[in-house]
């Protein structure tokens, strides 16, 4: 019988409490127990950044973080930075600049850029490249990702401003 450990933390601003085996990984807890599937598992060994979440605002690889270690902390996932109606200005910049293709690495990039701009709202080109060094993308060649982040670095906007819904009125989200 596996011993269960109580863990309580803030998940996207909501307090949560759960009992889990000690070896549970944060990515599995968030995806399988809380059903938040936006975070993607790719390399599973902390080299690709696809599973990036924020722990007290800093990016971490959730594929190699034990869930028991986030007790008492704040966890933010892609669901937590997505406004209920619309896109964050970071998400909007990625869409407008074409900073994504297959999308599998994208939630991780959005989280990393969220942390970057929070810490450093106007990063230089070198700072952008350095900060995103740990996020791999096989589709875009990074050029449009870089352009998206550079456009944000140049903006004088409050970083929490969500894109007004009106700007997306023409989208139709499909449910297959």
């Amino acid at each position, binding site marked *: 019988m596996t011993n269960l450990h109580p863990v309580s933390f803030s998940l996207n601003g909501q307090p949560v409490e759960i009992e889990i085996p000690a070896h549970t990984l944060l990515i599995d807890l968030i995806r399988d127990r809380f059903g*938040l*599937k*936006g*975070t*993607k*598992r*790719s*390399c*599973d*060994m902390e*080299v*690709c950044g*696809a599973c990036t979440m924020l722990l007290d605002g800093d990016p971490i690889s959730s594929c190699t973080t034990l869930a028991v270690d986030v007790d008492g902390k704040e966890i933010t*996932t*892609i*669901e937590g930075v*997505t406004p209920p109606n619309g*896109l964050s200005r970071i*998400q909007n910049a*990625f*869409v*407008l*600049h*074409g900073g*994504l*293709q*297959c*999308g*599998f*690495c*994208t*939630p991780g990039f*959005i989280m990393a850029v969220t942390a970057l701009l929070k810490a450093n709202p106007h990063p230089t*080109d070198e700072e*952008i*490249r*350095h900060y*995103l*060094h740990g*996020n*791999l*993308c*096989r*589709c*875009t*060649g*990074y*050029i*449009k*990702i*870089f352009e998206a982040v550079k456009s944000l670095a140049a903006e004088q906007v409050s970083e929490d401003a969500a894109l007004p819904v009106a*700007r*997306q009125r*023409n*989208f*139709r*989200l*499909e449910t*297959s």
Partner: protein
Amino acid sequence: MSSVRPDLIEKVTGRAEYITDLTVPDMLHGFVVRSPAVHARIASIDTSAARSMDGVVDVLIGEDVASFGCWGVVLKDRPIIAIDRVRYVGEPVAIVIAETIEIAENAAERVDVGYEELPRAATIQKAMADGAPLIHEHHENLQDFYFKGGAKPTQGSNIFHTYRNNVGDVDAAEAAAAYVHEDHFTFPAISHFAMEPHAVIADFKGDSLTVWAGAQTPTAVQKVLSRLFGLQLAKVRVIVPFVGGGFGGKASVKIEPLVAGASWKVQRPVRVAQSISDSMLTCRRLGAEVTIRTAVDAKGRILAKSAKLLLDGGAYSDTGSAVATKSANRIIGPYAVPNLRLEASAIYTNTVPGAAFRSIGGPQAVWAKESHMDNVAAAIGMDPAEFRLKNLAARGERTRPDLRALDMDMSELMGRVTQSFASESQASNRRSRGMAVAATDPANTPIANAIVRLKIDGSILVSVSSIEVGQGAHATMARIAAQTLKQPFSAVSTLRTDTAVAPYDWGTGASRSTVVVGLSVENAALDAADQILDMVVDVWELPKESLSLVEGGVSTGSEVLTFHQIFHRTLGVDSGEVVGRGAITPRSKKGALAESPLFWETSAGLAEIVVDEDTGEIHVPRYASAADVGRVIDRVAAEGQDEGAAAMGFGHALYEQLEFEDGQPVNATPIDYTIPRISDVPPVFDTILVENGDGPGPGGAKGMGEGAILPVAPAIANALFSAYGIRITDLPMTPEKVWRALQKRK
């Protein structure tokens, strides 16, 4: 904003669903036990300890499914799971099927497999040596199964395909030549490294099978599963949600038969979600050994070219035969060469199976031919750009009699990349430049079907088998339908790929979707338009010539009838739709699409490099990439395709090699294998898309997305050669290789 791709919104918010985000009721999890042996007989498999664990439902091994026989897409050489023998490290030998992935993974460690090592042949040389162990004893060819044609194996050898094409008389031309130059190049195996590893859910229920797979060619998966398990095509359903990168690594058929076999065994849905490390043991680009020889006259005109390419096909053939054939075609380049002797073979080795990968056979061939071009130019004392220009085939000229005439001007692409660097007329002392060009013949089989449904409220549904793998195919199909029907893009939805809904199409690859599937969507939209106009003709008794589609309805010249009005009055009820059907076959457009290639995929690349002479490290501060795409449909997406292809080319050029030591994978994990990072792409990057509206696709589009990978490695190597006189002949151009070459020169 109205033109924003809906899939990007879903992806950027994390709402987009990939295979591993799906849950099928009653679903079990499979964990694959893989061979640690390079080539071995399976002496025993003991699954009893694994089976006895709580939560383990069953274990699939080869003898369970041996009666189904083998499958393949060109040669039928692959069992569902290893039966009595393993041929490479990583080959699946058992699947533990359990209630949770955790239980399956733990139980997998208790599957005990006994191996008896067999003699191995893990390299091209060893596989072709006299007395080499045979990796497959016989070759069952499947003619016209996936591609037109089949393989030409050499019985009693490891050569599973040889393609030859001879034009003119190379020997006579060489005898008459002023100069003949020969070079030898090698190209390594390369991992696709899609961010989403292979994952499949299979659900066998009696005589029907549903498979959720990130498959680029869902109808090929459907066909292989149908034949393998003896099911009607209509009873095999393949559903493809968003796919997290493919690059050919999810084309043809990969782990679908394996997972379907597991589901067949337990008659419940089974999911296998691989890790990237597993996927690195699933397929990879074919490595190559290339010998190339060119004969020129005193004025620098190429008289003859011969090339022999040996491709390392790995343990199972997959589409390796087609890769070999294409490598022979793609080594010609955009040049007018009157005499050709081309030969390419694909060879079985005891390594991870080779597979299609962005421009099949292209990077291998272009690496050799474009490096070789600069060597020949240097040998005859001619500027390499001038040597190329002198020998280019003109628009409308054929590079080989059996290939369609060139549909572009390579001099235009060369001019555009050169112009891109014009702001700095000369490279500084520390910097040097190199160029390379490519012309490739995509295998874009002209077979596709589409359905376009126009509904009473003016909304439109497009149904195609093309998958959405990031290239924007679904939005492109929606755009083509919107433009053809004169309706806003926002009115059109493209359904997720599902063979139970979408009509037959060959598949997503070979840069074919925009052109071939796009034409079928255009035809389907025209068919829908025709039907709605006929309603007006019939009910309003107006001549068809006076009618035209406008946003939201049909203009009669004097008034606009809304779709609503038209359906309501025609059908008598306030409902309805028209269903437009469009098909493309080799007979479409009076056979104009049948000749291969349907269009040429072409590119030019110009690289500026800086070499750290102390370490041998190459930096590329600047790169220009040009491709002739006919017409751009979605500029951001189109540029992104070529930028992604070029970045992959930087990986091929400088970092990437899936290494084997006597068959043992050395670096098949994401920690040990390096792909480019954001800091590795040139800070100055110019993406040039040439548009002359001269392609066969909608509005004059050609296919694109593969060409830009091709010139990168030889352009960098040519820059290195131009600055230092050193010629690297094997990829990747690691600091160590460059440093050693620099030392040797001194």
